[in-house]
């Protein structure tokens, strides 16, 4: 390191030190503390008592742990691909040269600006089994067939699908990201493909997809993290839901920590969640490594 470099480093550190301090104090310390607490019995009022891996052992015998885990995975496995496909589809449509394109873009982005809690309350009314607008429409189709519309809120078979359906309401955020990526695809590549005789599908498969693959990957990883941590909407709409059908992992952590005052157990739960997300992200990165094209790389 030359003198200039060292001075630069010191200068840089001086400017970033408030942020670094914040990271150490408000992120790193709590994270490490939770690791320690996960090895203890801790109820906030009294000093934590070290119990080794007891909390982690108890996890595996806890039926609610398995219920909440499977609920969360079920939700993630269906909601994530569905919302990604929808977001990409909408982005492609919004990228077509049509009249009033920016108006459409605004309309599709608007719902993701609605606060989650307001959204949840609104959808409770849409899903209302008796008077909900969704079932009003469904009954027009289903009743002549001799079927009744589902009870979205009260029937454990339909609560998770209801949440997944609702989740599509908020794809606006990822649509914008896809849209930015789509606009970045150089037009001359399409032109070249057209000269080679490629149709719309071939162009999409061999030009668009490779070029936006980093963005798909980004949305996928963020999606894994987001869906596995689902909390606010089911918490407001259903709490645990009929027969625990909408009892998700983060809600279980919350209940253990703040309702049952089992901070140690809740920390252990949180760490398992962290490991799960970490592993899934790792797997996603490994699998996609050879399939992502970064324009900047040689």
């Amino acid at each position, binding site marked *: 390191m030359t003198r200039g470099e060292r001075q630069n480093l010191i*200068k840089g550190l001086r400017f970033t030190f408030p942020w670094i301090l914040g990271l150490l104090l408000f992120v790193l310390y709590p994270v490490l503390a939770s690791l320690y607490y996960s090895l203890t*019995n801790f*109820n*906030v*009022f*009294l000093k934590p*008592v070290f119990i080794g891996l007891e909390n982690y052992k*108890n996890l595996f015998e806890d*039926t609610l742990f398995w219920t909440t885990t499977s609920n969360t995975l079920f939700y993630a496995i269906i909601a994530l691909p569905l919302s990604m496909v929808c977001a990409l589809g909408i982005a492609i449509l919004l990228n077509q040269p049509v009249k009033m394109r920016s108006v459409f873009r605004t309309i599709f982005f608007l719902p993701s600006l609605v606060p989650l809690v307001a959204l949840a309350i609104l959808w409770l009314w849409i899903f*209302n*089994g*008796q*008077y909900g607008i969704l079932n009003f429409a469904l009954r027009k189709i289903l009743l002549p067939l001799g079927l*009744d519309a589902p*009870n*979205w*809120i*009260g*029937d*454990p078979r339909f609560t998770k699908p209801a949440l997944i359906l609702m989740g599509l309401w908020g794809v606006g955020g990822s649509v914008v990201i896809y849209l930015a990526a789509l606009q970045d695809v150089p037009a001359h590549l399409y032109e070249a493909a057209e000269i080679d005789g490629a149709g719309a599908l071939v162009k999409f498969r061999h030009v668009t997809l490779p070029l936006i693959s980093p963005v798909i990957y980004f949305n996928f990883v963020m999606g894994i993290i987001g869906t596995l941590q689902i909390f606010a909407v089911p918490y407001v709409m259903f709490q*645990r839901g*009929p*027969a*625990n059908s909408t009892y998700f992992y983060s809600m279980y952590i919350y*209940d253990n920590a*703040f*309702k*049952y*005052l089992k901070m140690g157990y809740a920390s252990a739960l949180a760490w398992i969640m962290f490991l799960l997300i970490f592993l899934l992200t790792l797997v996603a990165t490994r699998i996609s490594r050879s399939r992502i094209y970064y324009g900047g790389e040689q």
Partner: protein
Amino acid sequence: MFFQFWRKNGVIPMEQNNKNTPSRRFITFKRISIAGLAVLFILFFRYVLVPGFRVDFFPGQLFSDQSDGRIRLEYWEQWTGFEGAAMQKVVDQFNASQNRIRVVKQTISDVNQRFLVAVSGNTPPDISSIYYVSIPSYAEKGALLNLDTLAKEYNIKEEDYLPVFRRMCTYKGHLYALPTTASTLALHYNKKLFREAGLDPEKPPRTLLELDRMAEKLTQYDEHGRIKVMGFSPSEPGWWPQIWGSWFGGDIWDYRETLTVNSEAYIKAMDWAQGYAKKYGVDHLQTFQSGFGNFSSPQNPFLSGLVAMELQGVWMHNFIEKYKPDLEYGVAPFPSAIPGLENVSMVETDILVIPSNAPHPKEAFEFLAFTQRQEILEQLCLDHRKFTPLTRVSPEFWAKHPNKYIRIFYALARSPHAAIYPLLPIFNVINDELGSTYTQIWLLKKNPREALNDLQANLEGEWKKEKAMIEQREKKAR
């Protein structure tokens, strides 16, 4: 200093400072912004980082405990609206009654949660209202002040209270709280629907069998065979699914050591509740119930005549008066399931506690003792439209009370079969698990016996773990 450093290192262009502004004015933009930042910083610490922060604009109270020479006590209360105003009235009366202590009432939402954070962070309020079922959990963890000696000193006598309230405020033989406004649950029924169904509106059901039969008569269907009006449902409002066992002589525990949620009484109760789901069709009932409006609105199913009979608390009167004052309704003790086991109800009460690390426990208790005077409690309960936990009640209280059925609710609290939630440190777990077991039974996912046996096994495990923790703690303390 900082700016000099920046200047030296060229972050702020030298020439700008040296050439263009040679004059050294005292008030510069920079200084103003530094001062502004400093003020913001202080405010941030005062209001955001300090738990139990308060936003009011009396500087005297802001920075000192004894601005007017009085000891200032912070009192956390969860009630807002007319109930909050009723409590404020008591606080004002107390502050006027002496000149040594000033109680300041703060409205705190989710008070159980905040209480926990504040006490463990050693910045507790002096007095707080918490949910009474938290007493065992908080007392076990040393968060509540034992009030035994203070109660004796201020002449608060056990025998002044109805037995059920003594039980609610005591844990392991020690007093931890004092009750304020009390409530019980009773059957509310719609007289107009009774008449339409050909029933005598002055004769509410007395036994569960009668209730079931009347419910059948009161239930109406539309042309598609869907339920239009429901006579009665054990799941409406469904707030206390765990207490049906009390009607069959069961309890969640034996008041010593053992949990008894899979007792025959509980199984019978759940069988009875599940009977409704089977008889009317669980899908029908669920769809019907999903159409109900918000509880606190004119679309409340009882107020809008969608449900003819309901188990509800003393507060129902307030909602009827607010949203549907012309509703013709009656109140009676909820029908008995077993001959001889009459006047079963569940009792609840608001309570006041003092945190174990409160700075002025004695002064705080002086306020608590003040609230327990008969005339003060009666005034408070009148304003809350509930009843008092005391054995003695003045005739004026009954005369002035806006709820004409108030005596029924009070009688239920006096009944030997008045039930309360189990005073166990793991109450929250029990409550949640019982609730979700109930939905499984209601949705016909499990038969009651099997479901309750599973629950018992599950809760016993939890209880064993908790007991081991308590023992460990007690050993350490010794």
